[in-house]
């Protein structure tokens, strides 16, 4: 999924909350709808507010600022109010509304506002390094797709192929991965965490990139038979299936990265922007926000643009 400048999206279309409060992909996205407005909400409350509360605060704010309800901001004045709503929401989904008290005791949460395990409390250096590494990875991806195109004729000559479809397909199959990435890896990263998915895809990307450079005709052919549907254009071609297979999955992993990176940057952005919380840190927040925003803006620039424009 490529999200050009989500942060600029209009915040003013209120949507019904319903039971969707638990969908983190979309909450994360929604969060980004209006950093400014969001921050306003956050600053109303003590710093130890969790990301969940923030998300809910946003939800509540959204629903209550609907034109039809005049006292838009009322529910945010008291943080306990939000707490109640969170409990309500959770109980609703797990169907345990009757045991609210007991439930509270069993909830696992951060150890206070400064819990170093809370990603929002990661040190600044950790955040910066994380952003830098992800930006680097994401830069390679579109570069990878664009660098190869001028070499296609050479590749086709080497494998003695004259199929024009195949010549086009070795480039465009890369895009098919983009169809699979957001559907497959985004939810997986929400279930198993970003890190394992990153590592998995890094290894996949590397393996398939290197895989291109070997002629795997003999040993790997059996692996790829099931993927014949990918290259029905000409059964007799010498360009090996594995290469199409490899390219296909290669893109898949990179698309996932782009996706995960966006989510992660969104998270980091929230963290950077709202970490301080209190009004004391206004200046630092402003500065940090600039940097984070710039990095965030690189998302659309490096991702879709270089993919679309430079791309091939």
């Amino acid at each position: 999924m490529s999200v050009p400048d989500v942060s600029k999206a209009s915040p003013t279309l209120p949507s019904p909350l319903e039971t969707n409060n638990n969908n983190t992909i979309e909450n994360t996205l929604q969060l980004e709808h209006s950093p400014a407005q969001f921050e306003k909400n956050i600053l109303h409350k003590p710093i130890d507010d969790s990301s969940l509360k923030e998300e809910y605060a946003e939800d509540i704010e959204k629903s209550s600022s609907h034109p039809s309800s005049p006292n838009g901001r009322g529910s945010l004045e008291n943080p306990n109010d939000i707490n109640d709503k969170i409990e309500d929401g959770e109980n609703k989904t797990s169907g345990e509304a009757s045991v609210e008290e007991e439930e509270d005791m069993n909830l696992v949460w951060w150890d206070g506002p400064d819990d170093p395990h809370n990603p929002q409390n990661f040190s600044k250096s950790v955040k910066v390094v994380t952003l830098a590494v992800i930006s680097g990875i994401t830069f390679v991806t579109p570069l990878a797709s664009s660098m190869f195109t001028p070499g296609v004729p050479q590749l086709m000559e080497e494998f003695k192929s004259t199929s024009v479809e195949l010549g086009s397909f070795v480039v465009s199959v890369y895009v098919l991965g983009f169809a699979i990435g957001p559907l497959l890896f985004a939810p997986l990263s929400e279930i198993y965490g970003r890190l394992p998915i990153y590592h998995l895809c890094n290894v996949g990307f590397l393996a398939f990139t290197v895989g291109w450079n070997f002629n795997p005709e003999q040993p790997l052919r059996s692996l790829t038979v099931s993927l014949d549907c990918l290259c029905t254009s000409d059964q007799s071609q010498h360009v090996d299936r594995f290469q199409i297979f490899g390219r296909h999955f290669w893109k898949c992993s990179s698309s996932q990265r782009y996706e995960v990176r966006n989510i992660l940057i969104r998270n980091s952005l929230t963290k950077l922007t709202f970490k301080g919380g209190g009004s004391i840190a206004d200046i630092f927040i402003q500065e940090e926000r600039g940097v984070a925003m710039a990095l965030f803006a690189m998302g659309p620039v490096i991702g879709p643009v270089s993919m679309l424009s430079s791309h091939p």
Partner: protein
Amino acid sequence: MIIVGPVAGGFLTEAKGWRWVFWLLAMVAGFFALLSLIFMRETYAMVILQKKTERLRKETRNSNLRSKLDSGLSHKDYFLRSIIRPAKMLVFSPIVLALSVYVGIVYGYLYLLFTTFSLVFRESYNFSTGAVGLSFLGIGVGSFLGLGYCGWSSDKLLKRRTAEADAVAQATGEPAAEMKPEYRLPPMLPASVLLPAGFLLYGWTANYHVHYIVPIMSTSLIGLGNIAIFMVVSMYLIDTYTIYAASALATNTVVRSVLGAILPLAGQKMYKALGLGWGNTLLAFIAIAMMPVPWVLLKWGEKLRKKFPVKNL
């Protein structure tokens, strides 16, 4: 930096062969993979809390413990929901369907150009492998301009239109006007015209072997139209579907990617059958047929949104 890819790739291929492109990529990717292995930490709060919960469950032997961020959905449900909602949106929301197809075609065109550039500029203009990379510059420059144009105009227009609607509302004593997603659409109107215009220019100038700079500059119109359409549609979908924006964008991505992979397959054969002039004219005609989409949405988008809500999907 955006232009670096094909240019560097072209010259690298010429000097060292296509395998070296992949070796270079593998080295850079390996470097970053290593860095991420060393420096990256889990950043997703839900998963961190889940692990903590599991640890505490073992330590305290209290199996009732659960993470405060637990969604209550099983992995399978969560996964299925993420996959099914985009599909439903495609079927039940005409806005998502129309825009996905439009962006899909535009995106497919781009890949069609990418996969035929080497052929066109090698055969018609005798470019070397290295120089072929330079033929992508037109699209790169156009996209850059399109990005600037969208970034510059989109928020401005949104604010201005909202202010105008607000003024009208105040004059008539109605409640303050809201920002409508439709206010995002205007930059798409010139873009939808530039795209076919670019194809016509590119096609016929290349057909008659006009100096190579002319078709390359024509492709910058295509790049500009392309990126503007792409960005406006994404912003419009985000604004329209708010908390379901992720699903709407996923739908868009899937359709776009499938068309992006398939359309180029027809490219070279089409050019062989129709020639560069009429081939590109055909592409332009299809793009012209899609031109009403932004106009219709500008006029009836609000009605359509309300008639086909996606909240229950």
